[in-house]
């Protein structure tokens, strides 16, 4: 039972799908952000795997930058949430539909 690239890709895809579920399902913004982390992480697995199987470092580079990006996003996202929370005392996205149409 050799574990090939496809195994990792499929795993990555499943995780990505779970992330999508989270993105669509979560109404609590904090937990929604968790789901976006899952999305990025799932891709990282693939990058690492491809990098491994092709013997090429670019994939790891990409994963590395993805991690950096994910971290930055967390900072900004949390900043936004804090501002919102200060004004509204909740982080429920259902409360967030003053603009529509």
């Amino acid at each position: 039972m050799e574990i090939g690239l496809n195994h990792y890709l499929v795993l990555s895809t499943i995780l990505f799908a779970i992330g999508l579920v989270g993105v669509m399902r979560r109404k609590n913004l904090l937990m929604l952000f968790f789901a976006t982390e899952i999305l990025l992480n799932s891709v990282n697995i693939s990058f690492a795997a491809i990098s491994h199987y092709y013997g090429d470092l670019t994939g790891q580079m990409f994963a590395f930058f993805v991690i950096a990006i994910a971290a930055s996003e967390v900072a900004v996202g949390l900043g936004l949430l804090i501002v919102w929370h200060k004004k509204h005392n909740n982080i429920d996205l259902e409360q967030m539909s003053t603009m529509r149409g």
Partner: protein
Amino acid sequence: MLSPVNVSIESLNLMTLVPMLIPIVGALLILVVDMFKSEQDKSMYVMLSLLVLSIDFAFLLESAGIFEQNGTVMGVFDVMLIDGLAILSQFIIVGASILFIPLALTKKRFHEFAYPEFFALFLFMIAGFQFMVATDNLILIFVGLETASLALYTLIAMHNRNKSFEAAVKYFTMGALAAGFYSFGSMVFYALTGSVEINQIASVLAANNYADIGFVLIAVVFMLASFGFKLSMVPFHTWTPDVYEGSSAALAGYMSIVPKIAAFVVAMRLFEFLIHSGVVWLEVILYIGVVVTMTMANIWALVQNDVKRMLAYSSISHAGFVMAAILIGTTQSNSALFLYWILFSFTNLGSFSMLWISRQKNLPKGQSSDHSYDKFAGLVKTSPIAASIMALFMLSLAGIPPFALFWGKMYMISSAVTGGYTVLALIMALNSAVAGYYYLKLIVYMFMKEPVVGLAGDVSAVNATLSLKTIIGIATIGTIFAFLALNQLLEFVTVFVYNSGY
């Protein structure tokens, strides 16, 4: 063991980095200035930013000159790619930024401009966009995109009122999802070709004769989704109206131009080789996407009650219109894209600035939103010049000749005709007619209705200062007299696009 790397400084072409470094240095300078003496007046920062951007613009002219002589330049381990597209789009990015930044000098005080960080973030954002367009490396594109986006989210939120937070959060969340899509798409490309550089991807795919078309398509799908988000293609557009409404009018105008041109350039780099390689699927999908985006956005714009939201939908529609250039993929169409966008930036920035100078702090009774149509009712009675200028921008957006945008539309439709997309050309043309309705609606309000009783007098220039008026003046002149500069512009753009191989 790893062998040591020998690189000569000359081969790095560090000059290619200069246009991006200038804003970064400028931003750091602003931060440093603030560190030494805080609570300075915003005008100082505005002028500082303006200076930095002007220097940037000058360097762009320099690199344009180099491009004309030497053609495309790669730099810094071939990560940087300074070709015609990069230069043209940087011109638009920096140019529009120069036009935008004086809009901070409003008469009324708004929260974001009280921060020196606002200007620093703004300059960082410009640098991010510049990196995004000046490379064909998916990693750098991603990093540049995120740098710019994160800054932009913050700029929106810094307006500091409920709607702007809401806008920022929405934009941010969807942006995060789009970032997920982008990385997934890149991953598939990487899996397919072992490379994250677009030209490398293209050559590997061509060498493989597109054997894994299924994989290619999946990569394209995720890329489409991600750039569809940036370019607000239907159905990835849903953030646009809300974000535009939530942010300040000036920033909304800016957002309708600069992030999109950056995304267009990347989309051009990424999708056109696929279309040219005969990926029919992409052609079909883009065709549908262009038509649906144009049409649906127009239709939604029809039913808006707020001018800014209307303009938001209208810029979605314009983006869809311009997306056709990527579908057509000829030199003419790509030139048309830049031409269109240059002309569009004048007009659209002008019209958003008109909203900006009429921005009140508190809504009077009977006015449902910041820029509801009612607010502009009978404007010609109270302020004929403001009404005329606004009408001018609307006519230009609608594509009435001889105002700026008409020429862009004309050239774009012509490129569709020339490229063999006659039906598309017709759809594009007729969409302009549908769009005519909502632009007219504002004109109707301004010129043909009586002022709404109860709204407080003339609000057309409550927020006006000399610098805002200057920007509007520039936009007006640009809109009216575009046709005089058109020949040179067209030649310039065509040469740059053609010499970049598009």
